[in-house]
C-alpha cells in the first residue's frame, strides 16, 4: 500500500463520528490549555491522561494528540494579548505580538498566528507522512557532540534578542545560565546550588520562570501605569482582523523557514518546540532586511516562531512513532499513554497497528482544519478580551498563573518560585533587562552542559570531537560564522571606506 492509500485508510478511521468528536474535544481543550498561562501541553496532557483509561486507544490518542498540537495554537493568544506566554513555546511570540496588540493590530497578529500554525502543521504532517523513516535516521545521527553544537547555535540567536542594550541582554542570559546549573549533577549525582531544598534537585523548570518573568512582571508593571490598548471600534470588523496582503508578503519566507527549522528541531529527542521557536525567531531576524523592526511589532516575528512550534509538535512524533523514543516532555506523556493502551511505540508500530498510526495522521489534518475554523471564529472574541478592565483581567490571569504553577508538580514550591521570578521580572522590566535571553539560556543551558560533558566523556577529554564529526563540525562552523559575521562585515566596511 502506498502512502496515499494508507492516508485514505487513515481518514476512514479518523472520520468516524466518535473520532471526529474526540478530535474536536481534544483541540478545543488543547487551545484552552495552551492559552491558560502556566498550564502547558505536558502538564495538561498529564492531567487529562487518566480520563482516557479504558477507552479505545486510537480514539484516546487522537484526543491527546489534539490537545498537544492544539496547545501550540492556544499558547500565542495570551502572548499577543497580555504579554503572558500561555506555554513555553509561545515565549517568542510575546516579543512582537504584544507590541502589535498595543498598536491596535491584535487581530492580524492572532490571524497570522492561526494561519502560520495551520500552514506549518499541515506541511509538517506531509513531511511526516512521506519522510518519517529516513528522518528518523537523521535524528539518530545526532549524538552528544551534535546536540552541543546545536545548543551553541541556539545561543548565537541570543544576539537577536538583546533589545536596546546588548550588555543588559547578555547579563540576562548569564543569569539564565546560572539558574540552569541548579539541580542534581547528571554525572556525579550530587545536588548543586539547591541549599537542601528537595524541590530544587530536579533543577529549575523554565515554566515557573517564564510565567514569573513575563506574566506576573507584566501584571505588576501594567498595574502601576495605566496601559490601555488603543483599538478603534472600526478595527473589530472581521476583515480588519485578518492579516493584510502586505502582512502575507512579509511572512512568506518566515513561515516556510519556521516550518522547516521547527520540524527538524522538533524531531530531535530532547530539543523540542520551545528551542525550535527560539532558533526560528533568531533566523527570521538575522535574515530580515529590516531586523530593527523585530521586537517592535513585526508580524514576521509571530509567523516564524508560531510556524516553528507547530511543525515541531508534529516533528516530535517522528522519534515517538518510528523509534519508540519520546522527543519531549509532552510526547513522553503520550508514550506513557500508548504503553498503557498496550501499544508499543517503536519501529514495528506502523506494521502492526496501521489503523492507529494512519488514523492519528489523518486526525491531525482534521484537527488542524478544525483549529483554523474555531480560532478564526473566536479571534474577535479574544481581541475583545483586552477591553476587559485591566484590574479584572490581571486578577483572573494571576489566578490562572498560580493555579497553573501548582499543577506542574502538584506542589506549592512551584507557586513560590513563580512569584519569586515575578518579582525578579518586575525589576528586570523596570531596569530594561530583556526577559527572553534569560529563558533561552535557562532552556539551552541544561542541554548545553549535559551534551558538553557527555561528549568529553566519550572523547576521553578531547575537545576536537566537536569539529571532527561532520554534522557537529558543520553546525559549529555555522555558529562561529554567525557570531563573527557582524565583525567581518564591519571590518570589510572599514577597509572599503579606506580604499575609496
Amino acid at each position, binding site marked *: 500500500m502506498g502512502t496515499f492509500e494508507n492516508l485514505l485508510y487513515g481518514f476512514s478511521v479518523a472520520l468516524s463520528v466518535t473520532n471526529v468528536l474526540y478530535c474536536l474535544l481534544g483541540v478545543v481543550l488543547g487551545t484552552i490549555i495552551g492559552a491558560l498561562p502556566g498550564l502547558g501541553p505536558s502538564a495538561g496532557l498529564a492531567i487529562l491522561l487518566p480520563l482516557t483509561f479504558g477507552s479505545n486507544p486510537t480514539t484516546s490518542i487522537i484526543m491527546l494528540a489534539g490537545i498537544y498540537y492544539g496547545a501550540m495554537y492556544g499558547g500565542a493568544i495570551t502572548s499577543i494579548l497580555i504579554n503572558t506566554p500561555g506555554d513555553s513555546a509561545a515565549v517568542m511570540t510575546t516579543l512582537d505580538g504584544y507590541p502589535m496588540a498595543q498598536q491596535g493590530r491584535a487581530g492580524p497578529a492572532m490571524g497570522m498566528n492561526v494561519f502560520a500554525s495551520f500552514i506549518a502543521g499541515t506541511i509538517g504532517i506531509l513531511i511526516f507522512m512521506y519522510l518519517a523513516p529516513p528522518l528518523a535516521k537523521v535524528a539518530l545521527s545526532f549524538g552528544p557532540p551534535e546536540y552541543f553544537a546545536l545548543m551553541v547555535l541556539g545561543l548565537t540567536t541570543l544576539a537577536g534578542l538583546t533589545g536596546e542594550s546588548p550588555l543588559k541582554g547578555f547579563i540576562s542570559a548569564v543569569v539564565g545560565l546560572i539558574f540552569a546549573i541548579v539541580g542534581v549533577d547528571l554525572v556525579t549525582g550530587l545536588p548543586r546550588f539547591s541549599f537542601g531544598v528537595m524541590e530544587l534537585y530536579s533543577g529549575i523548570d523554565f515554566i515557573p520562570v517564564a510565567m514569573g518573568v513575563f506574566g506576573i512582571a507584566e501584571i505588576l508593571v501594567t498595574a502601576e501605569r495605566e496601559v490601555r490598548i488603543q483599538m478603534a471600534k472600526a478595527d473589530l470588523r472581521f476583515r480588519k482582523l485578518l492579516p493584510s496582503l502586505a502582512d502575507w508578503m512579509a511572512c512568506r519566507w518566515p513561515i516556510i523557514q519556521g516550518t522547516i527549522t521547527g520540524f527538524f528541531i522538533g524531531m530531535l529527542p530532547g530539543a523540542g518546540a520551545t528551542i525550535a521557536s527560539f532558533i526560528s525567531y533568531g533566523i527570521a531576524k538575522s535574515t530580515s532586511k529590516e531586523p530593527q523592526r523585530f521586537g517592535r511589532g513585526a508580524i514576521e516575528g509571530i509567523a516564524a516562531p508560531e510556524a516553528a512550534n507547530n511543525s515541531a509538535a508534529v516533528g516530535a512524533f517522528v522519534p515517538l512513532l518510528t523509534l519508540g523514543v519520546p522527543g519531549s516532555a509532552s510526547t513522553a506523556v503520550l508514550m506513557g499513554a500508548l*504503553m498503557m493502551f498496550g501499544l508499543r511505540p517503536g519501529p514495528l508500530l506502523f506494521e502492526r497497528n496501521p489503523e492507529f498510526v494512519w488514523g492519528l495522521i489523518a486526525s491531525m489534518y482534521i484537527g488542524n482544519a478544525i483549529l483554523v475554523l474555531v480560532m478564526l471564529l473566536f479571534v474577535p472574541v479574544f481581541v475583545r478580551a483586552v477591553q476587559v478592565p485591566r484590574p479584572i483581567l490581571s486578577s483572573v490571569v494571576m489566578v490562572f498563573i498560580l493555579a497553573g504553577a501548582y499543577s506542574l*508538580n*502538584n506542589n506549592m514550591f512551584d507557586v513560590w518560585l513563580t512569584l519569586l521570578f515575578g518579582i525578579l521580572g518586575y525589576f528586570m522590566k523596570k531596569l530594561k533587562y530583556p526577559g527572553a535571553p534569560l529563558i533561552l539560556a535557562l532552556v539551552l543551558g541544561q542541554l548545553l552542559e549535559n551534551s558538553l560533558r557527555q561528549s568529553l566523556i566519550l572523547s576521553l577529554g578531547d575537545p576536537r570531537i566537536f569539529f571532527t564529526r561532520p554534522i557537529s563540525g558543520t553546525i559549529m562552523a555555522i555558529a562561529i560564522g554567525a557570531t563573527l559575521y557582524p565583525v567581518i562585515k564591519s571590518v570589510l566596511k572599514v577597509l572599503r571606506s579606506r580604499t575609496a
Partner: protein
Amino acid sequence: MKRYRIWAVLLVVILMGAVVAGCGGSQPSAGEETAKEEGKEPAEGEPKSQYPERPIEFVVPFGAGGGSDILARSIAKVIQDHNLIDQPLMVVNKPGGSGSVGYSYLAEKKGDPYYIGTVSSSFYTAPLLGKSPVSYRDFTPVAGLAMDTYGLFVRSDSRFDSLQEILDEVKANPKSISVGGTSGTSDDAVLTFLLEEKAGVDFTYVPFESGGEVMTALLGGHVDISWANPGEALSQIEAGKARVLAVASKERLPSLPDVPTLIEEGVDVSLAQFRGVVMPKDVPEDAVKYMEEALRKMSETEDWKTGYIEKNMITARFLNSEEFGKAIVELSNMYEQVFAELSK
C-alpha cells in the same frame, strides 16, 4: 490614584499567595487529625473491618506515564475491576527531586493508613546519596509485587556477540568501550560499576537524562553498549534494531529464554528493581494486613498477570509485608556498599 494601584495588585498577589498557602498548609494538619480520628481508633479496639472508610490516596513520586505511574494505575485498575477494596484508590502524581518530593509527602502522613505509595530503585538510592531526608525507616512495607531487571544491549549490527567478547576487548584496551545509562547514580551506573569490579575491566560510562535518550544514543552508534529494562527495549529487539547479550537477573527471564544471565557469563553480578507498595510509618496493623491481602489477591488475578506483568516483561514476585521489609533492608545495604565504593 495610580500610585495605589500597584499596592492594590501587590496586596492581591500576597492575599492570593496566602490563600493558596493556607490551603496547601491545611492539608497535612487535616491528615494528622484524620490520622488521630480514623487511624488510631480502630487500633484501640474498634471492629477491624472498618478500614477503609474513605478513598485512599495512592502517591506516585514520579510523573504521569513513567514506570511507577504505570504500576500504580495498573494496581488501581485491577483492584477496582475485581472489587478488592471497597473504597476507590486515587492515583496522585507528586514528581520532583528524583522521587524524594513524593516520598517526603508520604512520610509526613505518619500514622495515616489512607495514603499508600509506590517504591522503585530511587527509594533506596536517594537517601543514601543525600538527596532525600526520608529513608525506608520512615515507611511501613506493605507488599512487594514485581522485580524489574536490566539487560545489556548492543545495536543489531554490533561486532559483539557475547559479553565475553566485550570484556576481552575492553581488557586489552581499557576505556575503549562506552556504556550508556541514565544518570551517574542510577541502577545502570551501579551495574556498570559492579561489572567493572567483578570482571576487572574499565569502561567509559556516559550518563543520559532518560532511558529514551540512552536508547537513541545506542541506536545511533554514539555508545557501544547500554543498559535498559527488557520491557523498555522490547520493541527494538522485535524490530531487529537491538540485541540483548545478557540479563542481570539471577535466573533467565521466561520472556527471553535464550539470553544468558551475567552470572552464567562468568560475572557474579545481579540486580533488579523491586517494585512494591508502602504506607507511612506507625499505621494501624490491621490496615497493613488489609492492604497486603488486597494486593495479594490482586497479584493472583489473570488481569494482573497478563495486563501488567507480561506486557511490561517483568518478573512477578509477591512478598508480604514482613518479607518485603527484609528485602528493602537487604537492597538498601547493597546500594550503600556500592556507593561507598563508587565515591572512593
